[in-house]
C-alpha cells in the first residue's frame, strides 16, 4: 500500500467512527430533551431515555474500534501529521480524550444503579460530555485545516449535525422513520471528514514513513482488514434491526 492508499484508509476509518459514534454522541446530547412535532422542547421521561440509549447502545463499542484503528494508522504511517495535529491542537485533543472518557463512563454507569439522583447526575454528565466530545472532534478537524476560524466553524457544525444524526438514528431504530433521514445526516457527518482529508491531503501524503515500511505495514493491514470488516458487517446488521422485545437492554 502506498501513501495515497493509506490516506484513503485513514479517511474511511475516521468516517466510520464519525458515523457510528456520532449517533451515540447525538443521542447522548439529546438525552434529556426531545423536540415536539410542533417545534417545542419536551423533557424525556426515564423510560424514554432508556429507549434512546438502548437504540444507540450497540454502536458504542463497534464505533470506538474505528477511532482506535484510525489513530493507529495516523501514528504508524503518518507520524508527521500526528505530531502537527497534536502539537497545534494539544488542548483540543486533551478535551476530546477527557470528554470521551466521561461520555463512556456516563453510558456505562448510569443504569447500573436504580437511584433517581444517580441516574440524573450521570445523564447530565452524558449530555455535557457528548456535546463537548462532538465539539472537540470538530475543532480537531479544524486544526487539520491549520486555521483557528475553521476549528471554530467545524466545532459548531459538528455539535449541530451530531444532534440531527443521533435523532435520525434513534428514530430509525424505533422505526418511526425510514432509513432516508439517516442517509442524509450520514452524508452531513462524513462531509467535513472528507473535506478535511482533501484540504490536508498534500501535507498528509508527503513526508510519511518510508515506502518499504508502508508496504510492510500494508501487508499486515490487508490481512487484518477482512476480519475487521466482517465484524463490522455483524455490528451493522445488529444496528439495522429495529429495537424490539428480543433485545437485552443494558445501557
Amino acid at each position: 500500500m502506498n501513501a495515497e492508499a493509506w490516506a484513503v484508509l485513514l479517511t474511511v476509518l475516521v468516517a466510520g467512527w464519525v458515523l457510528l459514534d456520532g449517533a451515540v454522541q447525538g443521542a447522548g446530547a439529546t438525552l434529556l430533551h426531545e423536540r415536539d412535532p410542533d417545534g417545542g422542547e419536551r423533557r424525556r421521561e426515564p423510560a424514554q431515555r432508556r429507549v434512546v440509549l438502548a437504540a444507540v447502545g450497540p454502536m458504542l463499542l463497534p464505533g470506538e474500534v474505528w477511532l482506535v484503528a484510525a489513530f493507529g494508522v495516523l501514528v504508524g504511517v503518518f507520524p508527521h501529521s500526528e505530531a502537527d495535529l497534536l502539537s497545534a491542537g494539544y488542548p483540543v485533543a486533551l478535551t476530546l480524550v477527557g470528554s470521551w472518557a466521561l461520555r463512556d463512563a456516563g453510558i456505562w454507569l448510569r443504569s447500573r444503579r436504580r437511584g433517581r439522583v444517580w441516574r440524573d447526575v450521570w445523564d447530565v454528565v452524558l449530555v455535557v460530555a457528548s456535546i463537548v466530545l462532538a465539539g472537540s472532534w470538530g475543532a480537531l478537524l479544524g486544526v487539520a485545516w491549520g486555521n483557528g476560524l475553521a476549528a471554530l466553524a467545524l466545532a459548531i457544525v459538528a455539535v449541530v449535525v451530531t444532534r440531527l444524526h443521533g435523532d435520525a438514528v434513534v428514530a430509525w431504530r424505533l422505526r418511526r422513520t425510514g432509513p432516508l433521514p439517516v442517509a442524509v445526516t450520514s452524508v452531513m457527518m462524513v462531509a467535513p471528514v472528507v473535506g478535511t482529508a482533501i484540504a490536508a491531503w498534500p501535507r498528509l501524503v508527503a513526508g510519511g514513513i518510508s515506502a518499504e515500511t508502508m508496504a510492510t505495514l500494508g501487508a499486515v493491514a490487508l490481512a487484518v482488514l477482512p476480519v475487521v470488516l466482517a465484524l463490522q458487517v455483524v455490528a451493522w446488521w445488529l444496528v439495522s434491526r429495529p429495537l424490539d422485545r428480543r433485545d437485552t437492554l443494558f445501557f
Partner: protein
Amino acid sequence: MTGFLGVFLAIGFGYSQYAYITRVDADRFADDADPSALGTLSLTAQGLMETFAFLMFLGGIVLLLLLIGNAVFRMPRWLRVPVCWLAVLTVPIPFAVALLGWLSRELARQPWVVQGVLRVDDVTSDQSARTVLVSLVLLVGLMVTLAVLDWWVLGRLARAGTDRLALGAAPADVLRDDGASEDVLLRFGADGAGAGAVRVAGAVAGAGDGPDGAAQGVAR
C-alpha cells in the same frame, strides 16, 4: 478460567523476550554490573512483576481447583474469607503487573525510546512543561476517579447478589422499572412473550399496579 489462561500466555511471552533483552542490555545483566539508580529501579520493578505474575499463576490454579464441587462455598469461614479476598485481588493485580513490566522496560532503555534507534529527546513534543503537567493531572485525576467509582459500583452490584442484577434485562422489565407508559411496554412485549421464566415471574409481580409499581421500581 480466562485469567488463568491469560497469565499462562503472559508469562510465556514474557520469558521469551529475555533472549532479546539480555542481548541488548548485556552489560546490565553482567555479573560485575554496577547498576545505576534507574537500572536498580528497573530490576526492582521486574522482580516485583515476576513475583506477582507467578503468585497470580499459583493462585489461579488454586482458585480453579476450588471450583470443583463448589469447594469454595463449603470451606469453613476462616478459610473461605481469605480465598474470596484472593479472588478480589485478581482484579487489580494484572493491571499492576502489566504496569510494572512496562515501567521496567521503559526505565531500563533510557535515554532511548526505541533502543539504539530513537532518543526520548527527539520525540518529546514542544509543549511547555506546565501544559503537559496540567494535562497529566487532569487525565490521571479523571481516570482515578472513574476507577474508584467503578470499584464502588462493582462492590455494590456484587453485594446486591444475583437477584435482579442491573446488568441488562428484557426491555419490558427494564422499561417497567423506569416507569414506561402502557403503549411503550406493549411495543416491547410486556405480555412476557419471549422473556425468560424468571423475568415473567418478576414482571407479573410488578404488573397490575400501574404507575405505583413503576414508581417503586424507580425508587428501588
